[in-house]
């Protein structure tokens, strides 16, 4: 016996013998089964070492008896998901875009499929909500450079804009200033004139006469004599309130001087057919889709 046991008078409990400023530490023993449980968890963890990847090696780790891999687990999960969605994807593939849009169930499925695809692939340029940015069209409004019907949107997604793959969507705005087609005063005048087409007030002293003349010669071919644009050339309507690069005078002049011609990548081959259909429906139902 090393010494007497020290018993706390008030509680009748043994103390550990330690004391700090008159406060003594009671020894209220834990139940022994608690200790066993603790040992059991240790034994259990050994099971984990053996069954699962655990010990780091130089360039890998032990594999574990179960040969479990997180990558394979994900692949299994994804396969299960694909199998579950299979019938609906099948229907997407078989139906035309118009049929999908008319079938509420199917279009809902397409929207749900299209949203993550849009966020992954389209959002960097068009914004997460499709609101666009300067030079990247807003997909929610009712102005479409190349058309806003289902087939137009699908074609744009498949072949892109001004890509080698695209047969139809190649039209660009020439660099009138840089290439010496028009002189600086002419460009300024036609910029002022163009803005009046959209009803924007221009500074007094603007040479609208000259502008009108230049417009008729240089611009009307693509944008139309009335300025309403031509879809087949991707020439925007100049009379409305939507300006892809801004309607201020400097932006318009910049466009005339350097030309315009944004690119959109072709997605055919990168996205499979059902995904392109789903994406088309998604974009069409953002709010701007043309029926």
């Amino acid at each position, binding site marked *: 016996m090393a010494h007497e046991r020290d018993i706390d008078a008030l509680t009748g409990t043994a103390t550990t013998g330690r*004391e700090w400023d008159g406060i003594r530490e009671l020894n209220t023993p834990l139940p022994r089964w608690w200790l066993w449980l603790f040992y059991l968890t240790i034994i259990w963890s050994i099971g984990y070492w053996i069954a699962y990847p655990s010990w780091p090696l130089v360039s890998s780790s032990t594999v574990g008896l179960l040969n479990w891999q997180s990558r394979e687990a994900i692949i299994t999960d994804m396969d299960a998901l694909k199998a579950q969605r299979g019938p609906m994807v099948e229907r997407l593939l078989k139906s035309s875009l118009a049929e999908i849009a008319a079938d509420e169930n199917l279009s809902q499925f397409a929207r749900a499929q299209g949203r993550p695809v849009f966020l992954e692939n389209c959002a960097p340029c068009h914004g997460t909500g499709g609101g666009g940015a300067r030079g990247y069209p807003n997909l929610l*409004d009712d102005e479409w450079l190349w058309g806003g019907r289902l087939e137009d949107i699908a074609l744009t997604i498949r072949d892109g804009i001004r890509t080698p793959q695209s047969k139809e969507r190649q039209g660009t705005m020439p660099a009138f200033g840089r290439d010496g087609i028009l002189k600086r005063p002419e460009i300024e005048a036609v910029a002022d004139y163009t803005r009046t087409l959209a009803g924007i007030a221009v500074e007094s002293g603007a040479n609208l006469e000259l502008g009108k003349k230049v417009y008729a010669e240089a611009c009307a071919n693509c944008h139309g004599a009335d300025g309403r644009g031509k879809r087949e050339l991707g020439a925007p309507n100049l009379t409305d309130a939507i300006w892809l690069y801004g309607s201020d005078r400097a932006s318009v002049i910049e466009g005339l001087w350097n030309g315009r011609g944004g690119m959109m990548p072709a997605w055919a081959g990168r996205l499979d057919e059902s995904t392109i259909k789903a994406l088309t429906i998604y974009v069409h139902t953002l709010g701007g889709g043309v029926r």
Partner: protein
Amino acid sequence: MSLATAEPRHEPRDAGPAPAGAEPAVVVPVAGRSPSPLPEPDEETPLYAARRKIYPQAVHGTYRRTKWAMLAVTLGIYYLLPFVRWDRGPNAPSQAVLIDFPNHRFYFFFIEIWPQEVYYLTGLLIIAAMALFLMNAVAGRVWCGYLCPQTVWTDLFCAIERWVEGDRREHMLRERGPWTTERVARLGLKHVLWLMVAWWTGGAWVLYFADAPTLVKDLATFQAPFVAYLWIGILTATTYALAGHMREQVCTYMCPWPRIQAALTDEHALNVTYRYDRGEPRGSIKKNAALREQGAPVGDCIDCLQCVYVCPTGVDIRDGANLGCIQCGLCIDACDTVMTKIGRPLRLIAYDTDLNIKRRQEGRSAQVRIVRARTLLYAAVIAVTGVVMLYALASRTTESISVIHDRNPVFVRLADGSLRNGYTIRIVNKQRVTREFALDIRGLANASHEFIGVPGSTDGRRIVEVGPDQTREVRMVVTSRAASMPPSTPIVFQITDVASGLQAQANDYFRAP
């Protein structure tokens, strides 16, 4: 109250008079312990304690009867409630209480709760917590002693044990004796019975999550889903382990409530109390009788330890309030039986307070104060929460609409210069028939709205059809042709049931640059 006494510390004393005096709650310190030098940290004091097995003795009396009644009622509800039927019409389950996970519904008789209404659960939890506090303020651990599932099932398992292996004395003797066939048989039978009760407990549990009669049939024919068997297995294991083997240790080591309870209680709460003012000095019948003859001070306690033997947690209530005591009142019944036998007044142990003992010692009358600030407060919170919940339930509608404004972009300018905002609306139909809702938007002049992808609801009347007991999400755009708009205009989305005219509204805003 000695908070450090987690383990019921009392060994039944075999001999020797207990420390006499007015304060039996205090254990007399080891005599002659010099205050210094303090001993070294003691390697010999074990840090882990082996379990002291408890053999609760059978007892009869008021509180035992109360406990049997509570046991019958609570277990009866638990085991049979899933079979109670409630007619909700053809398209809904007819089980009175059902947690329908696949369809995201909770049914409770006439109430049907949707997932977005779990705030009712918050109300219920507030009421439950306050009821627990109120019970505690009035009479200590009533919950622990009479209602807690741990207590109820332990009680049942102890009863089975006594029935099969005999009451305390018989059981102890048998365990000390040799391994006879009979002993093995009885032990086996006990565990079989325990497992059956445990299995039934698990079985009843899963019935709350599916149509009970169907599930019983499926379970019997091994066609029920695996998860049903799994849960029955889990609940069987926990019931068997907790009620059969862990018992009072759940209350002492695992349950947080005793700790919370100890912090919440006050000196007016009626607790199971040994009235030491009456009981001390304790002594054997003969010794006390002799002392009484001589006119010496004698207490009523004859130190027969009956109160300790019946205690399901092994507490000696004569040591005063103790964390191990679940306030079941069985020691009251035991002592009352003894008092009746020796012809002394009942309730040497009773629901009482230390305060009253002191008052009696000072010659004042006892005082029971149930109505006091804390009980009033708890009752008030219960009442207010209850009223709020009742109001919420009573004013519950069968249709509602919620609106989410597009965040990106907040608004869109159209070619003609007008502004458009996009919204996602969700219409809820809590009736069991398909309904058509007309949507109106108020607060915007010169505006139009349009659903996207809802066939047949272009211009003219905008109608959305919502299936029975379902919700429907629809995307829509609102276009304003007003010449100038403030950055934010409050608008109201209103749905009207075309057939019945019932309406619901949601508020949102129309945003502009």
